[in-house]
């Protein structure tokens, strides 16, 4: 870029490096020769000042930050979905007299919600302060409401799980006076579990949607559907793995419905997004995870419908569906974390929506004003 007319007399320069893609070059002092103090290094010699030709971001640095959520959160998203779906299956099995399905669904619900809670606590910065979540109930915070849902569901699942284990063990657990109490609690506990289950399976969509992380923000309208579908297919798959085919009929239907919902809502979600917001879902590692999630979901769904009455095919399809759900959660989480790295994913859609409001005649709600 020419700054003054005299610049034209300068010898040609090598093209300047552009700071695209959020990459930046960091140089330690040791690298430029001052680390040991023995000689004075040329501190600025090799530093190229980036003068962007286009002022579309601040040196390609992110505008918003990704939450410090790592693999445990993806694991929790998956396990919470399985737990919620299993809670619903357990209630249905109880009502329709399918004792094996009821038992396996209740035990799955207890196991997954327990492990999921541990994963949630593990990802906290200060796990020892986990109980601070219980200081308040906050409607504006999906995390707060979700904590109460998880806590309630886990407690009720504990009661129901203990009952099932006791029955499995031929009522030989040393429960003593607790046994009649647990039995009396079975009805209310299963009602409570089935009331909280759908919330547990779908609230995580609101948790991710209620952020400014570009890909999640753009997916707001579809994430709850995607996650509820993913939970359905995963819970159906889990029941197909753990339950004999004679009782797993409802699980197979639920899994098939979940696959249809999962594939459809993922496609609708992608279509509704700005291309820059969609990109992380289709490229890189998250893109690969989501591609395999879709393949496995479809394969599992086809296996369920065609060969679900064979124990082996049912178990294999169930495993494929569980894997598909886990991959979906990892893919969506990582796509979001990836999406903040490029500031254009924040800036371009925001400029577009601002311009759209302008075009619609709304001109008084911009953050930038001329006085």
């Amino acid at each position: 870029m020419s700054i003054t007319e005299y610049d034209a007399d300068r010898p040609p320069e090598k093209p300047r490096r552009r700071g695209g893609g959020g990459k930046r070059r960091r140089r330690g002092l040791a690298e430029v020769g001052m680390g040991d103090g023995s000689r004075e290094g040329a501190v600025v010699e090799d530093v190229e000042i980036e003068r962007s030709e286009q002022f579309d971001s601040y040196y390609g640095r992110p505008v918003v930050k990704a939450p410090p959520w790592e693999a445990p959160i993806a694991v929790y998203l998956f396990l919470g979905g399985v737990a919620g779906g299993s809670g619903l299956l357990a209630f249905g099995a109880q009502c329709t007299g399918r004792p094996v399905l009821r038992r396996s669904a209740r035990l799955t619900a207890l196991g997954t919600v327990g492990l999921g809670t541990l994963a949630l606590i593990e990802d906290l910065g200060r796990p020892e302060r986990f109980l601070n979540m219980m200081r308040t109930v906050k409607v504006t915070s999906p995390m707060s409401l979700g904590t109460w849902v998880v806590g309630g569901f886990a407690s009720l699942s504990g009661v129901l799980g203990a009952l099932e284990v006791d029955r499995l063990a031929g009522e030989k657990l040393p429960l003593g006076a607790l046994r009649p109490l647990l039995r009396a609690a079975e009805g209310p506990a299963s009602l409570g579990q089935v009331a909280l289950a759908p919330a547990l399976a779908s609230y995580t969509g609101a948790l991710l949607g209620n952020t400014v992380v570009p890909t999640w923000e753009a997916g707001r309208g579809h994430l709850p559907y995607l996650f509820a579908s993913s939970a359905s297919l995963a819970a159906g798959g889990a029941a197909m793995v753990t339950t004999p085919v004679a009782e797993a009929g409802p699980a197979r239907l639920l899994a098939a419905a979940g696959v249809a919902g999962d594939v459809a809502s993922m496609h609708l979600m992608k279509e509704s997004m700005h291309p820059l917001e969609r990109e992380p879902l289709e490229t890189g590692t998250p893109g690969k995870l989501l591609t395999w999630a879709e393949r496995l979901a479809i394969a599992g769904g086809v296996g369920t419908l065609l060969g679900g009455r064979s124990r082996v095919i049912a178990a294999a399809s169930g495993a494929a569906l569980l894997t598909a759900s886990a991959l979906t959660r990892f893919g969506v989480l990582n796509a979001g974390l990836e999406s903040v790295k490029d500031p254009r994913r924040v800036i371009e859609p925001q400029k577009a929506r601002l311009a759209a409001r302008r075009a619609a005649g709304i001109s008084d709600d911009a953050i930038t004003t001329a006085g």
Partner: protein
Amino acid sequence: MSLLAGPEGPSAEAGWDHDHERKGFFTDTSICIGCKACEVACKEWNRNPIDGNLEILGSSYDNTGELGANTWRHVAFVEQGQERIEEARESGRKLVSLGMPGIGPKSSGPRGATPAGDLSDVDRTPPDTPEFRWLMSSDVCKHCTNAGCLDVCPTGAIFRSEYGSVVVQQDVCNGCGTCVSACPFGVIERRDDGTVSPFAVREEEDPRRNTASKCTLCYDRLVDGEQPACSATCPTQSITFGDHPDLTADAKQRVADLHERGMTEARLYGANPKDGVGGTGSVFLLLDEPEVYGLPPDPQVPTKSLPKLYARTGLAAAGMVAAVALSFLGARR
């Protein structure tokens, strides 16, 4: 869509007896000289550790990078040529004006008052270099009227102070990180480096380790009747602290003055209570589009669309219940 804080002001809406005016910053980037005294004062007062390892980022004089858990003031440096100056001037001309507010006498003193003596002969035109300019801007937490971080905090660790600012209680925060993803400005962050000074061995542990961390508007200084460290130290009055209504009035006056001198690139950022965050406590005067400084052009607090999102979540949950019910009805024994 009604939000949690409206035109009454955030501290009144948060239930405080209103004996404090809302406080805030006005950062006038047109007189920032990029000395970074605000960064230093902030680090010293709040005992914040350094970010990185004394590295050169290759972005003009900015070797700080961005706001974060340990950096609560960040001075941005942008170098621009003549072409871009013209573009900025043009884009500023197109912006909508909020109009000058009619307000009563100010409680704070006049800012930028001229020195005493006869100055009638002095040329007071600001020195200008038409073919090149250096944008310098000290960024800080916006202390939004509708703060995303505060809304989503599940522990209640983040609260609205009586001054209208948004503050984290470090001893309550359990580091869940939800607030980080809810800030449209990328300000708040979890402090994962537990040390105050990475070059010294410290016996004591940082009590703020692994908790969310951001500018407090120097809450500890405000309760003692002091102003924040950054504005107290700013040598050019680029950062001014005061009552929010006065500051926005000053800001509007300043933009009008600059426009009169032909500097139509001047614009306000955060002074509009109708914007996506209900207006900010920290108002900025910028000389180019916000994204040039790393600020979002149209920030929206996520809470604004949360009712709709909850409705969809409820619908998804209901759909799932229906799917399970139909599965049991449709399954053959």
